Structures are given as C-alpha cells and as structure tokens.
C-alpha cells in the first residue's frame, strides 16, 4: 500500500509535528510570563483597582451639637426628619416606580421625577439613595410603609436635621445650616468636607461650625457592578454628635426683646450686654427669617423670596448696618473733651440757638441758655458739643472713639461684621486725598458727617462707658461641652482697650445720661422706678431734608432712631442699644429697652416676669423736634438730637 515517497512523508510529518509541539510550548510559556507580570509584578495596582470596584461608603450624618441658653434651656436642637428615598439599584422599571411612589405620597409625578432626574444627571453613584420627599409628613410615611411590598425600591430614612423651636426667635444669633457650596469645598475651615456635607452658613452655626458639626459616620458596604448591595455591611462607623454649647443668651430676655419690637411695630436691631464681660444677653435684627426653612434644604422659591425681600431679612443689621449715630456720639465728644482736659464737667457754654465756627453758623434746636456738661447731655445741646469739638483735634476724637469701641470691628463672634468708621486725618487723606477741614470736626462732634457705625459698635461704646472705661468684646459663647464629658467654661475675650478717665469726669457723663432718662431729656420712656436707667437717644437721617421730597415716593424716608443705655447708673449690670429702623426718633426705641430691662431686673430679683406688652407704639406727634446740621460744609436745617 505504501507508495515510494512514504518514508519521506513520514519524516516530514514527524518534523512538522515537532515544530508544532515546540511552538505550542513556547506560546504557553509566553502566557505564563504574561500572567506573572500581571499577577505578581503589577499585583498591587490591580488589587487597589479591584477594591475600588466593590467597596462603597454610605455616609451617616452626625447630629449637630445642641445650643443652650445661659440657664440651660434648649435654644437649638435636632429632630429626626423622615426622608423618603428611592433606591435606584433596586428599581427594575424606573417609570413604573415613579408612578407608584407619586401615588403613595400624593404628589404629581413630575415632582417625584425631578430629584431623581437631578441625581441621574449629576451622575450620582447608583447605590446612593435619592432623596425624593424630604421632611415627609407622617401621612406620607405611613402611606409608603403600608405599601412597602409594592414599593420595594422605596425606603424611609431618618436624618437628623436642625430644629429651631421658636422659629424666627434669635435667627440672627444662631444662623442657619445648609449643604456646603461648591466654592466652600476646600477652604481651610471646611477641610476634609466633601460635597453634600451640611455646615453652618451664618451665625453661631457658622462661626462654631467645626465644634458643632461632630463627625459623620459611614457604613461600608459591598456592592456589585450595578451598585446593588450584597450581603451584610462590612462595618459601621457610628456618627459622633457635635459638641454642645452654652450661649450667653438669656431666653427670657431674647423673647422679651423680640416681643418688644413686635409690640412697637418696628424693625431694627438691638443688643443687651453684661458691660463687665461683654456677654450678650439678648440680641436681634429684624425683620428676620425662620432658619427651620433651611434645615432640610431650602427650595429655590423660598430662597428667592428671602433674598429678594426689599426689607432684607437675611441681613444682620446689628453688625452689618452702618448709620450716622447722631446725638449718641456726643458721649464720645464729652469723654474726649474731658480726657484731653479741654473741658471740665463745669465748663459752661451759652446756647443762643447755635454758634458760628470757622465763619459758618451751626444750628441748635433751641436757645438752651447757659449749659454745663450734665445739662448739655440731658438737653442734647448741639451748641455745647460744637464748642467742645472746636477745642479738639479730629485725631483725638478718633483716638477716643477707637478706645471706646466705635472704630473697626468689635470682634463679636458672628460672621460678616463690617467696619465702623470715625473720620480722621489719615482716613481722609487715604480715601479722598484731601486734608481734614476743621469745620468737619464740628459736625463729627454731634455724630454727623464722617461717622458711620454699626449698632453693635455703639453697644460696645456704651458698655465701655458703663464699666468705667474697659473696652470689652461682645461675645456669645459661655461654655462648651465638646465630647459629652462636661461643660468647660469659655474664658471671656481679653479687653481690647482701656480709657483712662478721672472718676469725677466719668460720673458727670453718667449723671448727664441719667438725667436724659430721669429728668427732662428724651429718654423718659425708658425710665424704671428705682433702677436709675441712664441713656442717650440719637437720630440718623435717611436722606437729607432737601432730597426728602423727591425720594419719599420710592423709599421709606423716615429717620432711624437709636437709644443707648445702661442701668443702674452706678455699678451698671446691663448696657446696650436699641436701634429702631425708620423709628423717626430715638425715643421710639426707649420703650423696647425698658421692657427688656424690666425683664432683666425681674429675673435678677426673683420677681415674676413683666407681662408681654400689647403695644409699645409711639405716636409720631409726641416726638420732640430738633435741629440737625448736614455735613461740615453744607449745613442746612434739619432735625437731630
């Protein structure tokens, strides 16, 4: 059967079979080398990659620290909010799930779809629950729970959110919380925080955010390639609640203060301080807002409503509003004059309804006749303080204003405080490249012209006067409990300056301020029997008299009123300011101050708190009228005190 070439064929076959076997062995060996490189040489790189694939961390939000008032009453706390979430990973048919969920919670489908669409377009990982109904009502929670079988992809989560029990009360003290903004991520104070973290956005919530935030926990889960959770969680880091804080605020006084404003029908700002320490017992800025609205994420309409409100409820007038203090500034002029020795308490000026300085006539409201310092303060006599101002250099007034706390920031522990301004040669040169004109000092002496200060700066100034010359720092925190181990007192901020004044000089100023309230001055509405309330009113012009007519159609042109005060006159226990926006006159602010101080003294002496006032309105006709000057070079008729 074998043909002649069979042997040759046999040889060729064997050779080629051998070649085939060798090449197969080479190929398999090459594969072994390739696997060695991947599995041994590059192992670590791929192992890390594989871990990233299947390990997921789901954040658990920590409750923020609770805020207490100085007597241990809860001011800000947390509550469990029910959030109805959709777990996309469990959804077989998203549209059907949306329809069922919308039906269960009683919402239109579009409203349910919106947050889901947002999460999808944001490329959120599929295992992250999508919050659909935040702050769900009990009815919604019950409806979803009852239909759990039909809604396997829906869950109800409990999330701790901030609760402000008294709604708007103290809103400008506490501030509000919100999701971290893109521009905030990566700032040093928010180090380590990522998108979706909740932080204090203003107020105490913001300044003490780090202490209040606590530490979010997390749950580590194993997920498969479509993000579905597999098996039991690998572990859970429980969230750590934020540190508790005791504020200097007294809840009763805070309530009295805001009730007082409402009873007076006024907006404005106020602060009540312990003049010895700078502790703020009550403070407000009105109109205000309800921080609860922000607690779970504010919607666009509500935010637009707040920021677009012409009354600007989001602005904290106490630290962000700047006004000409008017007659309140006469306290500074008096102390500068006494301190520099250009006057004594007995220095007398005869007021004939004004006086001429540097060739110009400056007006006073009345012809007060012969005035000494005490009566000049009581009567708020412009002529007297023009004269004191004419004896002082502007830089000396600036120096005393600074020591009293009227220049720059007071250092209050709230965000966004603006600088208060009192004119000086250096300032004018810097801002206007012009020399200071002596005539301008005459205006500054009665709080007009180059004076623009915040209410909190005026409160600091009057506290300094009340405590005998120590400029304290207004502050809001008394004690902290960072880890639940007990309260640790927060030391009072160191005094920032000291005004050296002879006792008899200080006493004369205090006497004058006492007479404003208790004798023939403009502060009579703040008088409390036996408490020796001392104070001074002031008026800040909104527009000049000449512009008033033109502007009255488009804006509120009524003047602002100030009342700064302390009590009792000797060894004062309380000091502060009430600023009445468009209150027309400082005396409009006095009844509010009186009601809060009555509350303060009632508590001190263990008496029942005074009943909330029904009305603290002041009839416009009852207001005394005064003359006001404009700035130093363009004096005109006006009203001031």
């Amino acid at each position: 059967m074998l043909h002649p070439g069979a042997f040759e064929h046999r040889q060729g076959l064997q050779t080629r079979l051998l070649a085939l076997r060798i090449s197969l062995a080479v190929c398999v060996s090459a594969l072994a080398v390739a696997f060695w490189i991947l599995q041994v040489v590059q192992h670590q790189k791929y192992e890390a990659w594989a871990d990233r694939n299947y390990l997921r961390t789901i954040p658990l939000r920590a409750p923020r620290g609770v805020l207490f008032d100085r007597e241990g009453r809860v001011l800000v706390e947390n509550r469990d909010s029910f959030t109805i979430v959709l777990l996309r990973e469990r959804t077989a048919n998203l549209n059907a799930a949306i329809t069922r969920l919308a039906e269960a919670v009683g919402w239109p489908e579009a409203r349910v779809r919106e947050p889901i669409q947002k999460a999808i377009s944001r490329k959120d990982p599929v295992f992250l629950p999508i919050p659909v109904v935040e702050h769900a009502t009990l009815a919604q929670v019950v409806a979803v729970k009852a239909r759990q079988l039909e809604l396997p992809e829906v869950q109800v989560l409990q999330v701790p959110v901030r609760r402000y029990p008294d709604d708007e009360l103290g809103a400008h003290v506490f501030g509000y919380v919100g999701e971290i903004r893109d521009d905030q991520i990566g700032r040093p104070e928010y180090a380590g925080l990522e998108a979706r973290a909740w932080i204090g956005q203003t107020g105490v919530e913001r300044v003490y955010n780090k202490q209040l935030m606590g530490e979010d926990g997390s749950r580590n889960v194993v997920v498969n390639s479509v993000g579905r959770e597999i098996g039991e969680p690998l572990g859970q880091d429980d969230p750590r609640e934020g540190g508790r804080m005791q504020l200097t605020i007294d809840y009763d006084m805070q309530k009295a203060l805001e009730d007082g404003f409402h009873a007076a029908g006024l907006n404005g700002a106020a602060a009540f301080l312990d003049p010895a320490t700078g502790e703020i017992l009550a403070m407000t800025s009105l109109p205000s807002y309800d921080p609860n609205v922000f607690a779970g994420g504010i919607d666009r309409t509500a935010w637009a409503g707040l920021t677009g409100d012409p009354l600007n409820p989001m602005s904290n007038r106490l630290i962000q509003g700047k006004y000409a203090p008017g007659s309140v500034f006469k306290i500074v002029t008096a102390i500068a004059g006494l301190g520099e020795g250009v006057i004594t308490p007995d220095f007398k000026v005869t007021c004939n309804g004004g006086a001429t300085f540097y060739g110009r006539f400056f007006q006073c409201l009345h012809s007060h006749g012969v005035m000494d310092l005490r009566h000049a303060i009581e009567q708020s006599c412009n002529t007297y303080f023009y004269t004191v101002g004419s004896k002082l250099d502007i830089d000396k007034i600036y120096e005393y204003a600074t020591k009293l706390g009227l220049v720059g920031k007071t250092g209050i522990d709230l965000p966004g405080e603006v600088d208060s301004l009192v004119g000086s040669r250096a300032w004018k040169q810097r801002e206007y490249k012009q020399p200071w004109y002596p005539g301008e000092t005459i205006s500054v002496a009665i709080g007009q012209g180059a004076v623009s200060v915040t209410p909190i700066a005026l409160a600091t100034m009057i506290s300094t006067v009340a405590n005998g010359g120590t400029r304290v720092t207004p502050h809001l925190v008394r004690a902290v409990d960072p880890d639940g181990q007990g309260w640790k007192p927060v030391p009072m901020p160191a005094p920032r300056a000291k005004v050296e004044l002879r006792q008899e000089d200080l006493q004369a100023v205090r006497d004058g301020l006492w007479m404003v309230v208790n004798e023939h001055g403009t502060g009579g509405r703040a008088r409390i029997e036996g408490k020796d309330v001392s104070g001074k009113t002031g008026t800040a012009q909104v527009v000049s008299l000449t512009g008033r007519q033109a502007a009255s159609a488009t804006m509120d042109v009524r003047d602002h009123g100030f009342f700064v005060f302390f009590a009792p006159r000797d060894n004062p226990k309380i000091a502060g300011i009430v600023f009445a926006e468009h209150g027309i006159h400082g005396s409009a602010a006095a009844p509010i101050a009186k009601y809060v101080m009555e509350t303060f003294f009632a508590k001190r002496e263990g008496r029942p708190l005074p009943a909330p006032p029904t009305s603290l309105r002041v009839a416009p006709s009852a207001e005394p009228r005064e003359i006001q000057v404009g700035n130093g070079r363009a004096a005109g008729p006006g009203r001031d005190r």
Partner: protein
Amino acid sequence: MIAERRLPAHLDWPLIAAVVALAVIGLATIYSVTWDFRLSRPGPQFWTQLYAIPIGLLALGAALAIDYRTLAQRSLIFYAVLVVALIYVAVNGDTRMGAQRWMSIGRFSLQPSEFARIVMALVLAMTYGEGRRGTRTPSDLALGAILLGLPLFLIWRQPDFGTAATLAPVLLGIVFVAGMRMKWLVVGTLVAVLLSPVVWMYVLKDYQKDRVTTFLDPSKDPKGKGLQQIQAKVTVGSGGFLGKGFRQGSQGAYGFLPVAHNDFVFSVLAEEWGFLGVLVTLALYLFVLLRSLDAARLAKDRVGAFLVVGIISGFGFQVLYNITMSAGLAPVKGLTLPLMSYGGSSLVATLAGFGLILNVRMRRFAN
C-alpha cells in the same frame, strides 16, 4: 478480533485524566462565579455544566468506539448533516444575545457550530490523508479552503465570528503537517494579510471593528467596549500569587467582569487561585496539547495523524486565544475556553473530539 478486545488497554488514561481535571476546574469556577448571594446557592449554569460532563463523556466513549477510519470514510455525510443543521439554524434557530446559533431538540438546545470543528477535521483528514500525492500545491490548499468555506460562512453569518475563526486553524494545521510547501503557506498568509483592509472595510461589522480599535486603546472607552478588557486585567492582576481563594473573588462574582462564567472563566480562575492556579491550569492544557500530538506521531496512518492535528489545531488556537484575552491582552471575541467555559454543546463537542484523538492512539497497532 483479539486486537479489538485488547483496545481498552491502549487507552490514553493520562490524557483522559487531564481532560476531566480541566472540566472539573471549569465547573468549580462556574460554581464560584455564579453564586447567588441572596439564595446562597450556585446559579443554574452550574447545573447545566454539571450535567454536560457525563453527557460529554458518553460522546467521548461513542467517538472512540467506532474505528476512526470508518468515521472518516463517512465524513462527507457528517459534513452534509452539519451544513443542513447550520442552514436550519440560520432559518429557524433560536436567537440569544443577538446571535442566531441554537436549535431546540426537545428540552435541550444545541449549537451545531460547536461540532463543526470535529466534522471539518474528519473531512480534511480524509481529503488529504487518502490522497496519493500528499498536499503540496496551491490547488490542494484551495480545495480545503472551499470545503472549509461553506460552514465557516454560515457560522460567521449567525454571527459567531469567534467560532468561525477557530475553523481556519483546522485547515492550516492539517496542511502544515501534510507537507504543504512553506512557500505556499507564506503566500496564503500574505494574501490574507493583504486582503485584511478589504475585510476591514467590507466584511467586518461595526461591533467587530470597535473591538479591534478598543483593544488598541482600551482607555478610550473605559465604560463601554474597553471595560471588559480593562476589567479582565484587573481581575487577573488582583488575584496575585496565591489568589483570593475559592468564592472570595469580587471581580467576577459581583459582575464587574461581564460573562465571567463564560468567555472570561480563566480570568476568574486567575483571580481566585492566583498565579499558582494559572500555572497548574496552563500546565494541564500544555500536557493535553502535547500528549494529543503524541497520538498524531504514533498514528498508524496519515488520516489518523491529520485528524488529531486538525482537532488539536482548532482546540489549541481557541485555548491560547481565550487565555490571552482573559488577561486583557487580545481583543475581546466571543470565544470560549474549551473544557472550562460554561456551555453544554461546547463541552460535549470538545470531549467528543478527544474521543477521536483517543481513538487514533488506541488503534495505532490495529489493522
């Protein structure tokens, strides 16, 4: 017929042991990767594969019971049956995952294309083994190409590019050992290379082009077509030297590596058993390949030798390609790993193929 009775003594038991070992390793890997975490049991693929092993061993027995020469002489009948079955599937088959490959026989479904390799090996062994002149000229090559062309075209159209591609090595392997002049082999390969731009433009479908471009730069599309390739590397690389352990892998079990029980079963093996497991498995495959070629060397005639080479060329090509792809080092093609990947038809056909190889070796002394 004394010789016939002594035949079982000539059975190549080491080869059978290695083949069964590979099938069991594959089965265990399928068990691990299809594990259902909610129900705490392996997936249905495990059971299908488990039943396929005894069926495959029956097919192996059947394939060695009848003298291979008898089978080779009737190979044109098998060829006709294959072509008819492929046409039937094309017209009337079941469509799964976008390909029309399956035909139903009662409760079972069958992929005729899986048996194409054996049939082609029989037909081509017969064609070249019985000829007087041997195979030396281009016209011999052309004849084989025409015989191969019909089933290859039908399988390609299913579409099943991978299985179609494994038919070419059957022809190439046989004509190589049959003594085809290297010149013509080189010319044939050159023609194929020169034709490849034409194939690229007019024959390859978009998804096939995508696979090639994705292979060249997987990072271009890491979420889409490059995903499998990158995840294959991650799966293999994360296994390390000793592996993560049985059922401890995350890449295959959690679905990061698609079709892990099928095309990428070797990646999962590498993940769970590490480089050590890879070495053992590669050694088993190499043993199977070399031991089978030993049968070709010992074969008493050229038909037997060519039959073994034809089967082993297709098998070897598919093994090498699949393992290379499992490591993310070759474009992803729908090409399973013979003996280990999930797939009943494939396992039965592969074991039947080894039945033929055993057949050739067993009858090396018989006349």
